[in-house]
């Protein structure tokens, strides 16, 4: 097989491939713009032997305001995997569907719609509930969704719970007056 870097360079003539990173001998990551992604996936599948879509998932980079989709492709003959990154605007995220390339992608896209709120127009049953039923909160895999706050609000804790910090506990009992700092004049 062609060396994956050479392969990506070859595709690089027609696609704006960037951030190539060889994680290990059989796994290389790279990034491609959203508009070119699906066309590239088709070419990788049909012309370069990357026939297997292992998964499609998303990473939330909330501080940068982007979602990064990862398409994990595998070439069985070359025994090599490619992780393709596509950045989306975090607000109003939308991506072309690839259910026409791999049937199982429809399920992944339906899950990403539910868990992150990413839209994939045309993807079958996209808006049907996947894991969640009657969910009325923001999509839960988004980083701003706080699971602990949610569960504290929805569920009650066992009575009689309550903990003490060893350091504070010892302070209160062993040397209470050694910590009452007067309000500082200088600091």
């Amino acid at each position, binding site marked *: 097989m062609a060396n994956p870097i050479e392969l990506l360079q070859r595709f690089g003539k027609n696609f704006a491939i960037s951030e190539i990173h060889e994680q290990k001998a059989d796994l290389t990551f790279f990034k491609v713009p959203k508009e070119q992604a699906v066309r590239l996936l088709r070419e990788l599948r049909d012309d370069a032997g990357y026939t*297997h879509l292992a998964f499609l998932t998303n990473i939330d980079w909330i501080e940068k305001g982007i979602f990064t989709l990862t398409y994990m492709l595998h070439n069985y003959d070359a025994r090599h995997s490619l992780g393709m990154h596509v950045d989306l605007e975090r607000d109003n995220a939308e991506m072309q569907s690839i259910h026409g390339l791999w049937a199982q992608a429809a399920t992944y896209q339906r899950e990403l719609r539910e868990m992150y709120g990413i839209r994939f127009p045309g993807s079958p049953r996209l808006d049907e509930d996947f894991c969640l039923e009657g969910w009325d909160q923001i999509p839960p895999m988004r980083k701003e969704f706080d699971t602990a706050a949610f569960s504290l609000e929805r569920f009650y804790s066992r009575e009689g719970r309550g903990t003490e910090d060893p350091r504070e506990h010892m302070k209160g009992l062993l040397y209470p007056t050694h910590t009452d700092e007067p309000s500082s004049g200088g600091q």
Partner: protein
Amino acid sequence: MFEPNPPVDLSSGKYLKLWQGPQHPGITGNMSLELTTCGDEVVDCKTHVGYLHRGFEKLMERRTFIQNFPIVCRIAVPEPTFNEYLYAAVVEELAGIQSPERAEWIRTLNLELMRLASYLMWLGGIGAAFGQSTVYQWTVTHRDYILDLFEEMTGARVYHMYIVPGGVRGRLPEGFEGRCHEVLNRVEKLLRDVEKVLFNNVVFKARTKGLGHIPREMVDPYGITGPNQRAAGFARDLRKDAPYLVYDQLEFDLITATESDTYARAWVRYQEMHQGIRMLRQCLDRMPKDGPFQARMPNVLHWQVPAGETYAKAECTRGEYGYYLVTDGSEYVRRVHVRGPSYTHAIALMEKLAVGTNIADIAGLMVSLHTYPPEIER
């Protein structure tokens, strides 16, 4: 590749909506099939999941690297250790830790025992789905003998929490090898009996041959892996193609079939059990008996893994099981994606294969794909 099933006009009175699951005994775990039938024949199938959704991937984002170790096993109940191994593998890779050789052998032993236990449960399932419940009782008992081994090796029967990032959690108990050989002998004897009672059974053959045929062309477009694709003639197995742990030092045959129906898939798995026993015996005889079984670790309480990403995969009983880990240099996971083979087998594939199947065979078809709902929902 995606072709929707033909539309059905429910108001015509020709059809019946039928829910199989989520508690139907023919379903492998809690999920449900929304079937549309016309007489005995299924004309449409929709898989519904969500009964086991616990949000593991989200929970892992707010736990430290060591705190994730006890929860990952719960992602696939009958076969938890693949989660433990793959989580350890991705964390070790990004943290630059190499687990010692002895640990690698113990991990292989652990995973192959798990495979055998999981296959035994499945073998009972496929027997029961076609009316051979005795096989179920036999195999579940023998699975319990393996769980006894796990109990003494790891301290727990199901959720072992034994393969920890850095190595394994303890040495093998005194005399373990002997007891393990004994259990393997019993299982091997049982398998010969099961071959007579199930695989050479006129009823079983009649009902499974030709059922749920997966055409070769469907394999890659549907992301089908594991025995489901090997029964369709693909000689692909991660233990051979991308050997991890000590698989490159073990002798075993890659089992394939060509018929790609329920019987072929069952037969492939049955033979893989024999290969598994072969590998386990090699492990027991050849594994190092001393030396470290844990790499030198930092203080795990505030363990920061350098920023990076990787994907590690292993051949579990159902196919390609994988962990995709993204780290940002903090003490917490940025993102974990768990790739379970059932994700596509139980949804895209099942929805396709169910159409045209007799309603009585749906449970058997489902079992023949060997799916575990918890790994779909995570």
